[in-house]
């Protein structure tokens, strides 16, 4: 009998993490685009991009350092909420958010920068509020890029392995996500079960890319 729990855990982790990554990535990208000080901008950009450049285990190492039992945030949670973050389900979300964040951040930043700044100024001279300008002009015109960033980030979160292994471990029914399950089944010699998980991941990844292309193509066609 195939164990379905990795599928549920992965779907849950990927869904919760994309919600966080999407909005935080969007806001951070907007903040960076608006920033006037170039030095700070470059430093922050480096920090936000680092997770895709570093080996996932290295990111996991840092996460463990921060969220581990003796880490600043980890010990805070133990002291005040009596909750151990490391090797719990939320740890899979933290790992997925950190690893997928750069994709969301960079795609939306690029998409924002592509929007003609005259459009924003036009909105201002026409009396539109900054809030309305952000959603109706900037966000709307950057949407294809933002959506593809979101879907890439979702797929990245779903496939996260290295940092998750370091911070959340590979506990069956708790932190064993799909990529983790593939690894475990292969290690145990159950190629058949591993194959089922692999098929599942490939199908989801393909659907994600299909949606991404479909949405951005449709939007562009409509405006052109």
């Amino acid at each position: 009998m195939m164990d379905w729990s990795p599928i549920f855990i992965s779907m849950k982790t990927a869904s919760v993490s994309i919600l966080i990554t999407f909005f935080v990535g969007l806001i951070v990208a907007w903040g960076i685009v608006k920033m006037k000080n170039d030095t700070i901008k470059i430093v922050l950009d480096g920090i936000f991009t680092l997770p895709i450049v570093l080996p996932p285990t290295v990111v996991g190492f840092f996460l463990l350092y921060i969220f581990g039992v003796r880490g600043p945030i980890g010990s805070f949670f133990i002291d005040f909420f009596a909750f151990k973050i490391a090797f719990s389900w939320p740890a899979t979300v933290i790992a997925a958010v950190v690893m997928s964040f750069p994709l969301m951040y960079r795609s939306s930043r690029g998409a924002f920068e592509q929007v003609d700044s005259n459009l924003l100024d036009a909105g201002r001279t026409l009396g539109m509020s900054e809030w309305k300008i952000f959603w109706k002009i900037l966000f709307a015109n950057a949407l294809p890029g933002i959506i593809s960033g979101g879907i890439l980030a979702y797929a990245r979160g779903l496939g996260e392995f290295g940092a998750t292994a370091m911070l959340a471990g590979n506990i069956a029914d708790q932190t064993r996500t799909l990529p983790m399950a593939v690894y475990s089944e292969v290690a145990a010699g159950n190629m058949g079960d591993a194959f089922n998980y692999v098929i599942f991941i490939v199908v989801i990844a393909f659907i994600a890319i299909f949606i991404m292309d479909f949405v951005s193509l449709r939007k562009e066609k409509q405006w052109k």
Partner: protein
Amino acid sequence: MDKSLKVNIQKKLNEFDLKVDFELKRGCLGILGPSGCGKSMTLKSVAGIVDPDKGIISLKTNEETTYFDSDNKINLKPQKRNVGYLFQNYALFPNMTVEENVACGLSKDSDEKRVSEMIRRFHLEGLEKRYPRQLSGGQQQRVALARILAYGPDVILLDEPFSAMDAFLKEQLRLELVNLLEDFDGFSILVTHDRDEVFQFCDDLIILDKGKVIAQGPTHEVFENPGKVQVARLTGCKNISRVEIIDDYHVKSLDWGVEFEASEKISPGITHIGIRAHDFSAAGKDEVNVFGTNDSSKLEKPFEWEITLANGLWWKVDKKIHEHDFVIPEYLKVDPENIILLEE
């Protein structure tokens, strides 16, 4: 009730300091200058898109509104200035239809009537549901103008409105815009590097060069008496030469090697003279301001002959489309009245 738009601002830019000071009391003001002279920056300061370092911008209609005042730390947001800005590329929102673009500056209540009124006024019927990219350049400009006028601005700012158009469309849209500005009872400022445009549209004119105002006044006066070399050049004077003053009424051109008589007394500050390319005419050998035309060359245009004399002077003569022959007279003259005296 005196209406006016007062602008007196300074701003440090990379290449130079922008310093403009003018007061607009009627109709349309033109700001003419080469690219990068600070004219767009001036316009953006009035709109509130760019902040000047110092100065005052204020509008007086029925009441007085201060847009910007560095001494009193007033800097009204663009949203509060009630200024319409026509961008060079029109800045239509690509994700909105024509209708949505026109409506986007309006509050909900008055919406639909006003939008359909503007759609009709700018001949955009049938295009309401189209997106900007599906429109021609002329239609895009009309949508941009409809969007501005729907908003009901006190001031309209036009930033090089015709620079991205082919010649035919330009002629047509200029006419439309002239009519529009005549109906509009607020102020407008047109920024351009095209002297024909300011001549057609603007009652008053400012000429900007490297951030400084080098000429200012009613448009016709500035064109007729440019006074300065740079102004003469920007208002389209083709022939400009350094001169040596001989006496109160005579100068020697150092570039063309000819002596000229002027109709006005020449003040000691005069360093150059200008002659417009249309101001030459055929002459006899013994008249005033005459010179020979040996070794000149001619170029045929549809409605004009362009003659370049051996000493570098340009002469333009009108012609009909079916005339293809032109004999350059042996001698040419310039009426002393048409010698434009210029200072550096």
